[in-house]
């Protein structure tokens, strides 16, 4: 965390010199924590979203589709989940992506691997994990998420669920598009706009999340969390997985809170399951997919991914306890 040393110095200066708060007092610690975390997270978000979107401009979904349409299962799943990581996800793009892939003849299971990885392993979640939990937890999250996306896609593919797609799919022989010529100037401008757009959307959630987190950090005793948050009982993992489902759009606000709970002793597997459920099982996404697939397919899809999340949660609670 040494690169954030200047931020810590700034936070200290603001807390103790400008606000003239008493050293070691609970209020001062909470304020200091809030200033430091907010600045750190916003620096990380701006830098990482910018670079990820720059890389992205070289591999738009249309290109990914072309690559995947020549691949079979397993290889296809491995690649699809990988491409899912670098593709941004918003509920508004779920349907065109899903149908565009199916129409190009990409198998349903491979398409699902992509659809699972895309929201679960997104740059905002990674930045928050990196900033709040450190690189080890971030890496565990990325690798587990990737495995869940690949394995769930393979299982869903094997289940032969194509008849549950409720849309007249027109197989298109040619889905290739001409390569757009973009200058570096255009790519940089796009990346800048995208970064600004994302930050504009999530900043209030982050401030509120860090604010409540700072308050818990300073004021709520660990014993209280341990007694009431039930972080380590057997039902904690399924409970947080269910709670995570409707929280998608608030991921940015929930993570700072979760990090404080972890710091106060909630088991890390439980934390991972919670974050994966928030990003990977999203209610708005299910509602929008309902337009093109039968409810049964959405339920099967959510169940398979849900089991993967539960497994990850229990596994890391066991391994890291």
């Amino acid at each position, binding site marked *: 965390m040494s690169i954030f040393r200047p931020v810590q110095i700034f936070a200290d200066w603001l807390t103790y010199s400008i606000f003239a708060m008493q050293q070691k007092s609970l209020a001062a610690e909470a304020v200091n924590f809030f200033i430091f975390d907010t600045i750190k997270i916003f620096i990380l978000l701006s830098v990482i979203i910018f670079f990820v979107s720059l890389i992205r401009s070289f591999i*738009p*979904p*249309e290109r990914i*589709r072309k690559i995947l349409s020549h691949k079979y299962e397993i290889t296809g799943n491995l690649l699809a989940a990988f491409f899912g990581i670098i593709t941004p996800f*918003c509920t*508004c*793009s779920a*349907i*065109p*992506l899903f*149908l*565009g892939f199916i*129409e190009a003849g990409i198998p349903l299971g491979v398409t699902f691997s992509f659809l699972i990885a895309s929201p679960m392993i997104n740059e905002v979640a990674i930045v928050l994990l990196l900033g709040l939990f450190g690189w080890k937890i971030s890496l565990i999250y990325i690798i587990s998420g990737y495995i869940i996306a690949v394995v769930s896609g393979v299982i869903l593919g094997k289940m032969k669920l194509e008849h549950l797609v409720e849309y007249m799919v*027109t197989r*298109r022989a*040619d*889905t*290739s*598009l*001409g390569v*757009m010529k*973009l200058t570096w100037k*255009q790519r940089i*401008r*796009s990346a800048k*706009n995208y970064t600004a757009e994302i930050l504009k959307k999530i900043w209030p959630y982050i401030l509120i999340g860090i604010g409540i987190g700072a308050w818990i950090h300073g004021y709520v005793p660990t014993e209280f969390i341990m007694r009431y948050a039930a972080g380590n009982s057997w039902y904690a993992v399924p409970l947080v997985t269910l709670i995570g489902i409707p929280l998608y759009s608030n991921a940015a606000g929930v993570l700072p809170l979760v990090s404080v709970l972890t710091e106060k002793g909630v088991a890390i597997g439980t934390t991972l399951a919670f974050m994966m459920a928030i990003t990977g099982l999203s209610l708005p996404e299910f509602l929008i997919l309902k337009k093109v697939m039968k409810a049964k397919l959405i339920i099967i899809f959510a169940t398979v991914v849900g089991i993967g999340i539960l497994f990850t949660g229990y596994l890391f609670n066991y391994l890291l306890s």
Partner: protein
Amino acid sequence: MVIKILGAGCSSCAQLEKNTKEALERLGLEAQVVKISDIQDILAYSVMSFPALVIDENVVLYGQNPTVEELMQLIRDRGL
């Protein structure tokens, strides 16, 4: 000349429509600007990232939000 803007309801699609109209105005050209938001119609162009710009049935841009100047260039390049 027919210019189509493909978009599944994202905010940047409205921006592209506005910029396209401004580009046409600055070039002093008349063209029909149509917004396409039906998923079936969009998929016919093989596009999955938005907004996308179609000039006379050719997809010229997708997943990009160009400036008015760039749009003027694109429209000129289409041989007008």
